[in-house]
């Protein structure tokens, strides 16, 4: 960042300029600046949900697009995610208080035998940003963790992540168990991770393979809407 940009005083910007600056700060992974921007918007009377969607998710959408286009790489995305996390930490309790709309609930975790959670964490964060309630199971999850939590939380979506070719078949174990228990159709099952592809997602009986966090959000929204429509029609 240049000296000139260092001189920007966030509180002196009008709302539009501040949101634009927050896009830039998210892009640059500047956590403290994002936290400051969130607090300024709150002081100006913005609703937490508006700050989340217009400033934070708006900024992360740009980050996600540039990642997909090969302009940004994993380290930069992680820094941006970390900055967004800072903003989310301020907003989350306020969102709960203000009864912000919830689109649906997702249980998400990395499968058994796998400790990689960067992709899973990004998806969880973007899903929260999009208005989903996310229950994060963490890493190395056996089938019971998914199914018991999904049932207890009355989840709409079960999300599974794997980074290894050796662990991705475990997703099928989870889905097969759902089928055996007659609960497969109770949930939307989304899968993702570096070695996966659409063909694999179909082969194991998932509803969709999501190649990145932005796709996961759009896919989840689409499926939840369809589910609600089916309920309404039924």
């Amino acid at each position, binding site marked *: 960042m240049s000296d000139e940009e260092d001189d920007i005083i966030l509180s002196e910007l009008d709302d539009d300029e501040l949101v634009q600056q927050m896009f830039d700060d998210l892009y640059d*992974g500047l956590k403290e600046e994002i936290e400051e921007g969130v607090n300024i918007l709150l002081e100006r009377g913005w609703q937490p949900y508006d700050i989340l969607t217009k400033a934070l998710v708006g900024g992360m959408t740009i980050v996600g697009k540039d990642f997909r286009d090969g302009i940004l*790489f*994993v*380290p*930069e995305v*992680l*820094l941006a995610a*970390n900055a967004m996390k800072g903003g989310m930490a301020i907003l989350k309790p306020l969102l709960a208080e203000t009864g912000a709309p919830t689109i649906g609930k997702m249980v998400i975790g990395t499968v058994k*035998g*796998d*400790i*990689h*959670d*960067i992709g899973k964490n990004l998806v969880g964060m973007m899903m929260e940003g999009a208005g989903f309630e996310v229950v994060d199971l963490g*890493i*190395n999850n056996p089938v019971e963790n998914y199914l018991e939590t999904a049932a207890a939380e009355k989840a709409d979506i079960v999300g599974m992540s794997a980074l*290894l*070719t*050796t662990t*991705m078949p475990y997703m099928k174990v989870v889905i097969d168990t759902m089928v055996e228990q007659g609960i497969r159709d109770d949930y939307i099952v989304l899968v993702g991770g*570096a*070695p*996966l*592809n659409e063909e*694999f997602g179909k082969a194991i009986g998932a509803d969709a393979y999501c190649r990145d966090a932005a796709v996961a959000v759009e896919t989840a929204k689409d499926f939840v809407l369809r589910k609600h429509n089916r309920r309404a029609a039924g």
Partner: protein
Amino acid sequence: MTTATPDPQAVTDEDLTRDGLPAAGRGRILLIACGALAREILDLKAANGWHHIDLACLPAILHNHPDRITDAVRAAVAEHRADYSEIFVVYADCGTGGGLEAACREMGVEMVAGPHCYAFFEGVQDFAARDEITAFYLTDFLVRQFDAFVWKPLGLDRHPQLRDMYFGHYEKLVYQAQTDDPALVEKARAHAARLGLAFEWRFTGYGDLATTLADWAGRANARQGG
């Protein structure tokens, strides 16, 4: 394509990382391998007198981009098919999600069994039996090229604060040593310290790589009446 047999001493790790190794154009059988395995394969070739076997390596940095490996191997097989009577692929699955195995089956070429080189250096069955999900592995090549394959691509040179986001769930770095080199052991130990992980040195030698290549060399020789 070069015409001289590559001298292992003359090829730098940086060449192998970025460019791989061109086939020498001699021999009836071609191994298409990951550049990270070039030294080990050339060593086995020399030790066993496999003069009928040629080696072409793809850039080792594909290790960091598994999604590109299958297409790169496909292209290399297509490029060399007419020049050799048999081709073998010295890659394991290497994070291709079964994609490389499917491509090799389709092309009618054999590849190395197992999920990745860490497994076949140790022996695929022994590796699986250990079930070490919190271990981060380095081979000789990766110890030497740690900055190019781990530290810089993960942005840790610019953003060291990201370290625990990547490695927070790992517990130890296992250096799977192909050679007994005290200097490499110390390097590997230092890498473990930089990642905040415990260190374990484990001598593997060439493991299943040696037995697989010997099997291929023998069978190919028998088929061709050599």
